[in-house]
């Protein structure tokens, strides 16, 4: 890679309208700057939503809702905390948050990786459909609610109703679980799971021993309606 490819496009959101930034980020898919630094995000919403290219992006500060929503291919580092719906419906690429995120992080995400160095709030990975999520801190209640695919790794504690109504997502938690949700049970590790967890921790740059984690997943009792399970619906 030559020097030219290393230049960083700097955008100051206290001066540039968000519409302009997002248009330029979208246009970069057709050729344009590949490295970006975004300053003074000041809690603005939808920063970088809909990016469609393997851009490298650093955001200096706290972001609002839906930052890099529906991200495809970009690698994003947020040096701050994030609001609701960070990387919602992410398709691919990597998003790393230095601070905390608010609710519904990576909601309905279908691919890629989200790493939260701080805590994620409620509904982390809600309805996830293939994204992998690694949280170094805690996750709030209803995390992995109706989670369908992918993996959620929690190094800290998990709140109530973890994995409520879960389908096939794999959940790994090192700390305590306040309460398991409907149809979510503790499960044994098979080789596959150990390999998956080890791989995700490495990918996320987290120094933790897979042996310290417990695994949770679907009991699969709600897959077809049965009158005996009526309470769980």
């Amino acid at each position, binding site marked *: 890679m030559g020097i030219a490819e290393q230049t960083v496009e700097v955008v100051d959101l206290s001066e540039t309208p968000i519409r302009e930034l997002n248009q330029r980020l979208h246009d970069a898919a057709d050729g344009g700057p590949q490295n970006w630094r975004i300053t003074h995000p000041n809690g603005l919403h939808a920063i970088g939503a809909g990016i469609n290219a393997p851009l490298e992006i650093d955001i200096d500060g*706290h972001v609002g809702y839906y930052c890099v929503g529906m991200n495809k291919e970009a690698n994003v580092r947020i040096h701050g905390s994030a609001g609701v719906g960070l990387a919602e419906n992410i398709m691919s690429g990597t998003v790393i948050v230095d601070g905390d995120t608010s609710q519904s992080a990576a909601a309905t995400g279908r691919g890629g990786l989200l790493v939260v160095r701080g805590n994620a709030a409620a509904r982390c990975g809600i309805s996830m459909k293939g994204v992998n999520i690694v949280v170094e801190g805690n996750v709030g209640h209803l995390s992995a609610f109706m989670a369908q695919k992918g993996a959620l790794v929690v190094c800290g504690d998990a709140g109530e109703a973890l994995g409520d109504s879960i389908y096939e997502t794999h959940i790994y938690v090192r700390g305590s679980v306040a309460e398991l949700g409907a149809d979510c049970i503790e499960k044994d590790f098979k080789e596959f799971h150990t390999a998956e967890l080890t791989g995700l921790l490495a990918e996320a740059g987290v120094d933790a021993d897979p042996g310290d984690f417990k695994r949770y997943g679907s009991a699969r009792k709600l897959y077809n309606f049965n009158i005996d399970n009526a309470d769980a619906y």
Partner: protein
Amino acid sequence: MCGIAGLFSKSSSFEERLGDHLSDMLIQMADRGPDSAGVAFYRNPAPTGSSKVTLFSPDEGYDWDLVAGELSGAFGGSNAPEIRASHAVIVVQTDADDAGRWVIDNHPELRVMSAGQAIEIYKEKGDPREFVERFGLRELSATHALGHTRMATESIVTTEHSHPFSTGLDLCLVHNGSLCNHNRLREELRREGITIQTDNDSEVAAAYLTWKMREGASLTEALESALDDLDGFFTFAVGTADGFAVLRDPIACKPAVMSESDDWVAMASEYRAIAVLPGAEDARVWEPDPGQVYIWEKEKV
């Protein structure tokens, strides 16, 4: 639905600019609350033996001096009204309950927005940006304040339906969310003797707290009971003489962000309302847990 904001000063220099900063916060919340705006400022405590009432008149040319004069006549002292747009704050030489009752009895055309030692509530329909200008909020100093911008869900947009709601002395509530059992609660609370003026669900929440505290509960206990008795989605911010409290319902679908610096403690529906505060970039930021009462109070001297 709505935007809410709360700001609590930790230093006297910040107190002087509190109105200016709360105004900036309110403007960041205008998008999610375009219909009306309101604030509760806690400032200029009335001397012992006196109290303050904030009154509203829809009549633009209302003769506030006349009312102030009548109050002086009834209770003593001679306090000029402090007029802000359609509202006036009058210091009265008696306790807040008597002052409020006197106004209701003698001037039914006026609305008592708040009563207490330190509280001043201003609220109006219309765009929050205009509200800030009309009421000259930027020049106000205060120890703490709450703000609210409203997107009306089921009750109408009027001044009376705006938040904050005050149903007790120095007490007020702002609410983001929607309650679904407020009609039955309103009936019960009215039977208990609490005055509720509108069909707004948020006013019922304020009345509920007033009732609980009248029956002996502390603010924390009253808020904890609210988790059982109020059905719906809410983030509440409650103002008291000494500070403010924040509570989210256990399902916690409505947002809340908290932040603390050396000079202030702040709360808002969205981080961008906190981003406008001085020192926000270095302040601690966190999200309050659902079902948990958070309280900040001035240290009692």
